[in-house]
C-alpha cells in the first residue's frame, strides 16, 4: 500500500513574518536576492535615517546546501551577470571561456561537422561553468549581503487569502512512511510574506499549483519540456580542451524525436556530457537514460570518451515552450521567475542568463512594492511589463516559434527554422501552436514489437561498466539520498490507473522515462487470483533526482511531484 506525502493537519503552526520570500535558491532566486540587496543598500545610502532592513528577506532552498540540486550543461551567457555583478569574472567560479565550438550531425556510424556553426549556437564569449559551483558562489554573496538562505527547507504549499498569495508553508519534518509524526517531528513554518517570488526551477510544484488555481496559463501555449540526462567524465588529457563545446544532432534519435547533445570542456580534463530528449516522443518504451548510453556508443563519441571514467550523473527537465508558453507572471502577492516561468531560449539551448535577469527584474519590482507598501497586482504587474521592455523579450521574441516548428519532426523543424530566420522569428504563422508532450505518446500496438528504427532507444540500458551504464549504476553516481522513512513524494492520484489502464494501454512508461528508477511494476504476490493485472506500481522514492519528468510525461497526468523532506535529493557537486 503506497502512502503519499501530504501536509499534516497541525494546529498552531509556527509563524514568521517576512517582507519577501524567494522560493528556490538557483540562478533566478540568487540573482533576485542579490539584486534586492543592492537596491536596499542604494536606498539606505540615500536614506540613512530610515533604512530598509534585509532581515526579513528569505530564500528557501530544498537542497541541504545551495547549488546541490542545480544541473545544467552549462554554458553561461554573461549578459545578466555583467549587469548584476560587473567584473564577476574575476571571482566567480568559471571553468573556461568558450573558444572553440562545432556542431555535428550524427548518423548511426558517421558524423558530419556543419561547415559553419548556426548563429544561435555560437558561443564565443560565453563561459563554460558548473552551475552547481556557480550557484554556490552566488549563495555566498547573498549571505554575505545579509540575506538568509534557508537550506534544507522546501516550500510545500502556498498560503492564500482568496486569490492573493500571502506566504509559503515549509515542509513538515520528521514524518514517517505512514504520514505519522516521528519523535523528531517539526511542523513546517507558515511564512507570511508581503511578496512571494517563485524561483523553483523547472516544473515548480508550487508554481504548478498556482497556475492551476488562478488559471494563469489560459492565454499561453501548453508548456513543452525536454529532459537532460547528464554525466560528468574525467578524460585523458588532450581530448576536449577547457572551453571547447561540441554539439550534436541526430543519432541516436531518429527524425521523429527532438533533442541533441552537448559536450562542454571544463578544467582538469573534466567534461560535461548531456543529452536532452524532448518529452514529446511517441514510443512509451523510450528511455532517456538509454538514449544517453546509445549516444556514447556512437564511434565519434566513444572515441572521445575512451579511457575516461564517469564520475557523476544527474538529470533535470527543462521547459522549452518559449515566449508563447509563459504563464501570467504576476498577481496579488506573487511573481514567477526563471525556469518556473519558462524563460529558456530553446534555439540557443540557454536559460541561465534569462533566469537571472527575470530574478533581477522581479527584485526591482519587489523593492518597489516594499517601498509603496503595496504588493497587489497593480504593483507586481509591473514585473511582466518590465520583462516586455527588457532584453529578455528581445531575445525570446525572435525564437518565439522555434520549438513548435519541430513538433512534426526534425526535417519540418529545420524548414520552419529557416523560414523563421528570414522573418524575424515569425515563420509561417505569427503564433505557432504547441501541444502537451505527453499527448504524443502512442500505444505500443502502434509500433513494431521490437521497436523498429527506435529499438536502440527502448527499454533498459545494459551497460558495459566502462562506456555505458545501467540506470542504477548511473543513479548511484547522482549521490541522491533521502530520509527513507517518509511518505512517497511522488503523489499518484489513482494507482489503479497504473496497475490496470496504463499497464494495458502504455505499458507503464514511467518505468522507462524516469532516469532514477523510481517507478517499478512489481509482482503482487498478495493480489487475489481474479485480479486482471499481476503487477502493481511500486515507488523507490528515495531514488528520485528531482527532475520532474514523471510530473510532465505521465500520459494520464496523475503524478504530482511534491518536495520530499527538505535536505533530501541528489548531490550535484561539480555538475
Amino acid at each position, binding site marked *: 500500500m503506497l502512502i503519499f506525502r501530504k501536509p499534516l493537519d497541525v494546529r498552531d503552526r*509556527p509563524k*514568521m513574518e517576512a517582507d519577501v520570500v524567494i522560493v528556490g535558491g538557483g540562478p533566478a532566486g540568487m540573482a533576485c536576492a542579490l539584486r534586492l540587496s543592492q537596491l536596499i543598500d542604494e536606498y539606505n545610502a540615500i536614506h540613512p535615517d530610515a533604512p530598509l532592513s534585509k532581515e526579513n528577506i528569505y530564500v528557501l532552498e530544498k537542497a541541504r546546501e545551495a547549488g546541490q540540486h542545480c544541473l545544467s550543461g552549462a554554458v553561461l551567457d554573461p549578459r545578466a551577470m555583467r549587469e548584476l555583478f560587473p567584473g564577476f569574472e574575476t571571482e566567480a567560479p568559471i571553468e573556461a571561456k568558450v573558444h572553440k565550438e562545432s556542431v555535428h550531425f550524427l548518423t548511426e556510424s558517421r558524423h558530419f561537422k556543419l561547415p559553419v556553426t548556426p548563429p544561435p549556437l555560437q558561443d564565443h564569449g560565453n563561459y563554460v561553468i558548473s552551475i552547481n559551483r556557480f550557484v554556490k558562489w552566488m549563495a555566498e554573496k547573498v549571505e554575505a549581503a545579509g540575506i*538568509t538562505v*534557508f537550506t*534544507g*527547507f522546501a516550500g510545500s504549499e502556498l498560503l492564500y487569502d482568496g486569490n492573493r498569495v500571502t506566504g509559503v508553508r515549509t515542509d513538515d*519534518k520528521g514524518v514517517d512512511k505512514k504520514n505519522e509524526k516521528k519523535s523528531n517531528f*517539526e511542523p513546517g*513554518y507558515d511564512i507570511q510574506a508581503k511578496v512571494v517570488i517563485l524561483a523553483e526551477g523547472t516544473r515548480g510544484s508550487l508554481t504548478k499549483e498556482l497556475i492551476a488555481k488562478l488559471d494563469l496559463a489560459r492565454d499561453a501555449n501548453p508548456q513543452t519540456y525536454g529532459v537532460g540526462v547528464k554525466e560528468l567524465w574525467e578524460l585523458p588529457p588532450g581530448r576536449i580542451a577547457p572551453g571547447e563545446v561540441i554539439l550534436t544532432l541526430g543519432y541516436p534519435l531518429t527524425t521523429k524525436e527532438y533533442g541533441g547533445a552537448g559536450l562542454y570542456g571544463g578544467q582538469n580534463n573534466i567534461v560535461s556530457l548531456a543529452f536532452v530528449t524532448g518529452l514529446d516522443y511517441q514510443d512509451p518504451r523510450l528511455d532517456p537514460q538509454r538514449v544517453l548510453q546509445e549516444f556514447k556508443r556512437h564511434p565519434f563519441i566513444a572515441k572521445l570518451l575512451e579511457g575516461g571514467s564517469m564520475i557523476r550523473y544527474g538529470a533535470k527537465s527543462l521547459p522549452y515552450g518559449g515566449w508563447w508558453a509563459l504563464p501570467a507572471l504576476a498577481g496579488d502577492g506573487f511573481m514567477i521567475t526563471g525556469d518556473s516561468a519558462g524563460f529558456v531560449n530553446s534555439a540557443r539551448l540557454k536559460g541561465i542568463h534569462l533566469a537571472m535577469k527575470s530574478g533581477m527584474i522581479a527584485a526591482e519590482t519587489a523593492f518597489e512594492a516594499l517601498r509603496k507598501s503595496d504588493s497587489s497586482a497593480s504593483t507586481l504587474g509591473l514585473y511582466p511589463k518590465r520583462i516586455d521592455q527588457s532584453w529578455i523579450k528581445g531575445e525570446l521574441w525572435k525564437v518565439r516559434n522555434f520549438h513548435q516548428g519541430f513538433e512534426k519532426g526534425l526535417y519540418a523543424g529545420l524548414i520552419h527554422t529557416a523560414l523563421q530566420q528570414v522573418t524575424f522569428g515569425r515563420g509561417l504563422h505569427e503564433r505557432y501552436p504547441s501541444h502537451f508532450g505527453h499527448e504524443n505518446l502512442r500505444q505500443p500496438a502502434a509500433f513494431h514489437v521490437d521497436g523498429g528504427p527506435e529499438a536502440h532507444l527502448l527499454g533498459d540500458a545494459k551497460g558495459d561498466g566502462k562506456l555505458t551504464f545501467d540506470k*542504477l*549504476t548511473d*543513479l*548511484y553516481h547522482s549521490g541522491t*539520498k533521502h530520509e*527513507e*522513512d517518509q511518505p512517497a513524494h511522488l503523489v499518484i492520484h489513482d494507482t489503479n490507473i497504473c496497475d490496470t489502464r496504463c499497464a494495458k494501454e502504455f505499458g507503464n512508461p514511467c518505468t522507462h522515462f524516469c532516469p532514477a528508477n523510481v517507478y517499478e511494476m512489481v*509482482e503482487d*504476490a498478495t493480489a487475489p487470483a481474479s485480479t486482471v493485472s499481476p503487477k502493481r506500481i511500486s515507488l*523507490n522514492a*528515495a531514488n528520485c533526482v528531482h527532475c520532474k519528468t514523471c510530473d510532465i510525461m505521465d500520459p494520464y497526468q496523475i503524478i504530482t511531484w511534491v518536495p520530499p523532506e527538505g535536505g533530501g535529493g541528489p548531490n550535484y557537486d561539480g555538475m
Partner: protein
Amino acid sequence: MPDTILVIVEQHQGKLNRVSWETIAAAQAIAADTGWAVEAAVAGNDVAALAAEVAAKKLAKVYAIDSPQLERYTPDAFAAGLKHLITAKHPKLVLLPHTYQVRDFAPKLATQLDRCVISDCTGYKRDAGKLLFTRQMFQGKFSADVSFGSDAPWIATFQNGAFRGDKAEAGSATAPVESFAVNLDAAVRNQPEDWFKEAKQAVDLTQAEIIVSVGRGIKEQKNIELAQQLATALGGELAASRPICDNGWLPMDRQIGSSGQTVSPKLYLALGISGAIQHIVGMKGARAVVAINKDSEAPIFEIADVAVVGNLFDIVPPLIEEIKKAKAGS
C-alpha cells in the same frame, strides 16, 4: 519575600538525572541577574536522600515532594504533585530540564495552571528589565527571543547542554529541606507499565562473521523464513537488500548498502540479490561472497567468489540440510 525561581530536578529510581545540575546552573545565572532566590524541588516516593543531595548546591530551599503515587512516573501524578507545590509556593519562574519526561508532563502542568511553556530554550537574556528566553528556529539557523505575556508563574525548559552542570554553584551551607507531602489519589488515572527497556541491542551487522542476505529473488515475505533457517544453521545473521526492508519484510537495521549498513564478514551469502552498485558498496569488503541467483548475468556474479546460477528455492533447502549434517558430524 523575594521572587523565587523553582527548579524541578529529575530523578529516576533514586538517581538524579545529571541534566538537573544544568537547570540549577541556569537558575543561579538568572538569579545573579535578577536578585531572585533559587529553590529546587524533587518529586518521588521517599526522596529525602535525593533532596539532601540537591541541597548541597547554593539554594534557598529544597522541597521533597513525597507521595507513593510518585514512586513510578505518570504524567497525571507529576503534573498534579507539582501543581500543588507551585500553587502553594508561588514561584515567579519554574525551570525544568528539557527531558523526555518533562516533555511528557510539562504541557499538562502548564495547562492546569492556565499558563504556557517556553520549551527547549538555549539561553536567556535580560532586556530592559524583561526576561527573554532564546529558542532555536529553522533547525538552528535562527534564534528567537521569547517572553511571557502572562502573569507568573512562568514555566520554561532548557535544552540539554544549554548550561554547564559543573557550573552549578555549591552552597556555603546545606540548604534547608522542606518535606511537602501530597495526596494524589484522586488525580492519577494512568496505570504505569514497567519502565521501558530496549529489548535487545539493535543488531550490529558490522560485527557478524557470517551474513545471509536476501534480495528480491526471495519473492514473498513468508520465504524470509527459509533464509533465516540458513542463517541459523550457519550461525550467522540475516540481512537484506533495500527492496526487502522497503517492503517492511525485515527491519531497516538489517539493510546492507549505500542507504544501509556497510559490512565486511568472512562469508556473505547473497540469495536472489541482483547486485546493483548501491548494494555492492555495502558488502564488497566481505572476505568470501557466495551468490545464488537465477539470472546468470546478474552483476552480483562479478564480485562473487562462488557463483551459483539457479533457483534459490531448489538450492537453499538441501544446503541447510547439508550444513546441519556437516555440523552434526564435526
